[in-house]
């Protein structure tokens, strides 16, 4: 404890922050809590539908590609890369907050740049993954005919496999798969995107010396809370869509 707290302080009688934390940080926490419920509701809805059907797409078959690797079967590899990118950009973010506590402007700038680069790298990965999902064709047996489908919000080529002309071929799966996948990863990607915008704004304000004039780098902390939350949500998206 760097500062002693008076035992006589009337925390709830006004004039003091009840939780001894700035208004901005409390409200950021409450916003993030409400956002957690939004993401939670989406993921639980997805889980409910997935539990209610007999067959669901196997993520190891759906997400097995890697850029420039052709048709090599590499389950989990690309999404692991995305996970580590986001964890690492969380580390550079917390290092930026750390430099802010020390009032070290150059340090904050350096780590904010790295955090922004991490966010852009993640968004690039997601753009590639979506493109691959939507444009990658897979044989599907539809009304006795073989068709080639990408994965979209209206088409799911990852249904039950059946025997057709001596070979196993997939049938259409529940269309909810694409809706949930693109809906939830898209909502998360939008958070990453807005997080990058916030971080760029903070970098500009740091460079302009606004926080030095203000005497503290608390805005970096609040942007950091949002950024870590984005990483936190990804941990659960990673679990629900790719691992299980």
């Amino acid at each position, binding site marked *: 404890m760097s500062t002693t707290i*008076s035992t006589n302080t009337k925390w709830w009688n006004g004039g*003091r922050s009840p939780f*001894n*934390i700035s208004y901005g940080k409390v409200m950021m926490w409450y916003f993030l809590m409400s956002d957690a419920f939004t993401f939670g509701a989406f993921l639980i809805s997805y889980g*409910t539908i997935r*539990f*209610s059907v007999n067959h*669901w797409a196997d993520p190891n078959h759906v997400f097995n590609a890697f850029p420039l690797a052709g048709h090599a079967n590499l389950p989990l590899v690309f999404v692991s890369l995305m996970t580590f990118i986001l964890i690492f950009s969380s580390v550079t973010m*917390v290092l930026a907050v750390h430099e802010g506590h020390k009032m070290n402007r150059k340090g904050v700038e350096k780590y904010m740049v790295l955090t922004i680069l991490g966010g852009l790298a993640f968004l690039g990965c997601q753009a590639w993954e979506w493109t691959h999902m939507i444009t990658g064709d897979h044989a599907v047996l539809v009304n006795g005919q073989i068709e080639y489908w990408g994965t979209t919000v209206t088409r799911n080529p990852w249904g039950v496999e059946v025997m057709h002309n001596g070979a196993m071929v997939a049938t259409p799966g529940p269309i909810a798969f694409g809706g949930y996948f693109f809906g939830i990863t898209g909502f998360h990607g939008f958070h990453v995107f807005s997080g990058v915008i916030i971080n760029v704004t903070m970098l500009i304000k740091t460079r302009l010396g606004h926080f030095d004039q203000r005497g503290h780098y608390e805005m970096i902390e609040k942007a950091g809370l949002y950024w870590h939350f984005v990483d*936190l949500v990804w941990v659960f998206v990673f679990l629900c869509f790719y691992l299980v």
Partner: protein
Amino acid sequence: MSSQISSPEITHAPEHAPGTSRIWRTFWVLSLLTIIELGLGYFLYFQHGHLSYAFTLSTKLLIAALTLAKAYYIVSIFMHLGDEIRNMIMTIIVPLMLFIWFIAAFLLDGNSWKNLRNTDAGSRPNKTEQHH
């Protein structure tokens, strides 16, 4: 003390470690947990079709538990919630307890739907194979 107080009504500032060792230690913990999760994910992939339903489900629950551990480290260390005073921590954690009911109720509901459909609401035996 290195940190500054942002406004006059705040008298408490958590002690921020002078070094970054705690941050890097958390990074390695998160990486290790992710690698264990991936190891279990690959285990399920390579053993697909050779494992019982109960064993597969248990492994998936273990992966979910590791994810919760990662969430704890991110929130407690990176977001510094662990450094705030106890009442602040409780206003965040206690409402999130709603998720315990939320997840259990809805996943059980989804499972019930599946059973009702597979048995025509209980009027015939369930002959549908379990696909997971």
